[in-house]
């Protein structure tokens, strides 16, 4: 049950987001399974040596987003249903990774067409049925 989270101070990402991202990644990778209990706010705050209010805030965000769920008197668990983000939140997250992709592409002197082709190739590999839907 100890959660393997590493936080970095002096990063451009605030600590609450670093924790949220790592929990979401652990869920996506199957390292955390639905129904699994995660450390209490206090335990994680003491493990990471950070303000407990920050952990509480992260958990509250993830519970609102549906990634975690709180069970009264028992603790916080990985949600059994898939996390549901709002449309705005999904767009925001997509935009963030798109920015990174486009910036890196431009930096490596790829044209817009080449980048689109690369993206389509990747999508075809990963989601082969998407075009038939």
């Amino acid at each position, binding site marked *: 049950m100890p959660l393997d989270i590493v936080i970095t101070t002096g990063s451009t990402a605030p600590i609450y987001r670093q924790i949220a991202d790592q929990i979401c990644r652990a869920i996506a990778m199957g390292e955390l399974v639905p129904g699994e209990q995660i450390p209490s706010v206090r335990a994680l705050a003491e493990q990471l040596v950070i303000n*407990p209010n920050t952990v509480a805030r992260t958990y509250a965000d993830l519970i609102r987003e549906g990634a975690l769920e709180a069970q009264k008197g028992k603790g916080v668990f990985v949600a059994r249903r898939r996390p549901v983000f709002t449309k705005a939140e999904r767009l925001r997250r997509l935009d963030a990774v798109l920015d990174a992709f486009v910036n890196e592409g431009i930096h490596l002197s790829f044209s817009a067409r080449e980048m689109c082709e690369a993206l389509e190739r990747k999508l075809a590999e990963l989601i082969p049925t998407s075009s038939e839907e």
Partner: protein
Amino acid sequence: MNDYVIRTEHLTRYFGAKRVVYDLNLSVQHGSIFGFLGRNGSGKTTTLRIILGLLAPTWGSSRLLGYDSQELPPEVRARVGYLAEGHPVHGWMRVKDAQAYQSRFYPKWNRELFHTVLEFFRVDPKTRARHMSRGERAGLCLAMTLAPEPDLLILDDPAIGLDPVARRSLLESMVYATRQSDRTIIFSSHLLADIERMADHIAVLDYSVLRAQCSLETFRSCVQQFVLRFEDAPPKLPPIRGLIQCIPQAKTLRLTIVNVTRDTRATLQRLGAQAVDETPITLEDAFVSYMGGTLQAARPAEFAGQTQVVGGVQ
């Protein structure tokens, strides 16, 4: 009960002709961990000493746990733990003597907590205080501050002079101290990494004046950085509201701006740049730009008027 454990109004202090604290309206909310930032000599220690009733203001007022700082009853003082700057100790005392001495002043004394904190700092109880390392001394001071289980902790630059291991012990002790729910901690520091780990709210003092008071997150989101790329040399900048730093390079301009509005973005778009990108900024960069921006250094008078650029005072 009281929402604020500390509240000052127009707090001002002169030492002779020298202005040390000016018109400070500070509010520290119950239950928060409050980081007090500012360069050396900006008035942090003086402010804390006035709040604690150790020093009188020249004018203005300060309230601590609902009482006037100048008239604190002993039972209210007992609810406040104060760690003075520099980890002062009585050199001849051993841990046992220090505990025996200090505990007499307080109605409550938690021996277990006292020893837990000493263990965090690996203090050998047999050492006399004068032979302790800086970190051990800090541990002893902190143990003595925490053992009375105060509702409010005021730590004046507790990390000063500590090596990384002792610093971590300090932070561990602070997190441990929050086990008592509803406890408020106010600490001053120059270490942005510690502020980032511990503080949920901050106040920034600069040249005796409060420059910002808000949640740490608000501070981060209010200070934004933009990189503008041009085909040739960047143009001369028009006045931009909230601009605190401008670093021109051959074909780029890096601008740090507070409280960006739609108008600010429109102004940036009109500069004729090929690209206007917002780049993420670290807390340290945000702070350094905010406090020591090149433009600001050149025009301190203008900034002295803008007391709360970020956040607001309730």
